[in-house]
């Protein structure tokens, strides 16, 4: 595993954190942001996407079927809590998916 770099004589420490990605119908945007904040995320990045999955049209279909994609860098514990909240509160009734993977960052404490 690649964890340290020697550059200009000083070592750069890369830390592993988790990137949680949520793709959801736009109506959920504010609620999801609120929820991940409560669960311990210190920031997020959001983008407009479109998509199709196994569920039919959803309520914003009339706006072209747009979804929002929320990405948040968090510690493994927070990631687990978010995935759990997604499973419990959103998967049953809403058009949402979520996935998680490891990424490396420079200042790990910013996202812990």
């Amino acid at each position: 595993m690649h964890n340290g770099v020697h550059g200009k004589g000083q070592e750069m420490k890369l830390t592993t954190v988790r990137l949680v990605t949520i793709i959801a119908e736009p109506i959920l945007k504010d609620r999801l942001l609120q929820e991940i904040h409560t669960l311990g995320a210190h920031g997020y990045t959001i983008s407009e996407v479109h998509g199709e999955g196994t569920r039919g049209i959803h309520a914003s279909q009339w706006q072209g079927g747009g979804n929002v994609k929320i990405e948040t860098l968090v510690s493994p514990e927070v990631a687990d809590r978010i995935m759990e909240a997604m499973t419990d509160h959103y998967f049953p009734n809403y058009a949402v998916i979520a996935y998680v993977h490891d990424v490396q960052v420079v200042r790990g404490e910013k996202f812990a």
Partner: protein
Amino acid sequence: MDTIEIIRSNLLSPLVLAFVLGIVATLIRSEVEIPEPVIKAISVYLLFSIGLNGGVELAGTTFSEFLLPALATIALAIAVPTWCYLILRGPGRFDIPNAAGIAAHYGSVSSVTFVAGISFVERLPEGQNTFEAFIPALAALMEWGIVVALFIGRWRLGASQAQNGELGRVIRDTLTGRSVVLLLGGLLIGVIVGEQGFERIKPLYGDLFRGVLVFFLIEMGMLAGRQLRDFVKVGPFMAVFGTVMPIFHGIAGVSLGLLAGLSPNGAFILGALAASASYIDAPAAVRATFPQANPSIYLTSSLGITLPMNLIIGLPLYYEYARWLSVALGRM
């Protein structure tokens, strides 16, 4: 005969033809497309214009003239979602969330139908094309139909199963929704600036209105066209519900409007408001409150069935009925 003529002339108006062009473009899968940001800006413009024009005319209206029509509107905003809910639960055999969800759509207002109704009147010959200036305020009141339907659903469902805390948010959102703010804000600004202040902005908010609406309706046609494809999925009950109920609501709206003292044109617009089914505010509110309701049912029926029905044959029908009833009531 006269009715046929008025339907024909509506069918051949630029508004309806643009709407049909949009439907056809979708059906032949053409890529004519008016981008979403522009459509959003246009809908702000249309609502604000209507408010503004109403406000400018409002001077001289007394509160007492407004009171009865407002009460009639509130009555409709309570009655329409209620009976829709009952019909959907009973003969419709829908579960509570779906029944309440669909009722919220038919209980509130489609801006496009409302705007087209106003434009329908303005197109009439000089002297016959006026209506009460406070009409935009009635449209804002009618938005409350959403809240009524959601209340019913939540009550029948028991608070536990509905989304906690969402109803409060929905009420707030309804009160501060885009159409309400623009209609009432425009109305207020219109009252304040008056004829004189309006004069210099009239080229945009007056002269262009109808042309912009035609442009807007191309896209609305495409929207309806996309839903039309799912027509079969909603089943025969909703197909009938989506065509018959609006007509019934239109007739109820016109009648109540005339009884409340509105002019025939004003009563016609109240009928159009009652007949119309929301497809922007209601879907969002329903999704937030009853996520378990199936969006394809309420969207397809309000956008794919009721919207075209209202624009194409509903409006001239309600208008003819308004004229006929006025005569019958000895008011014209």
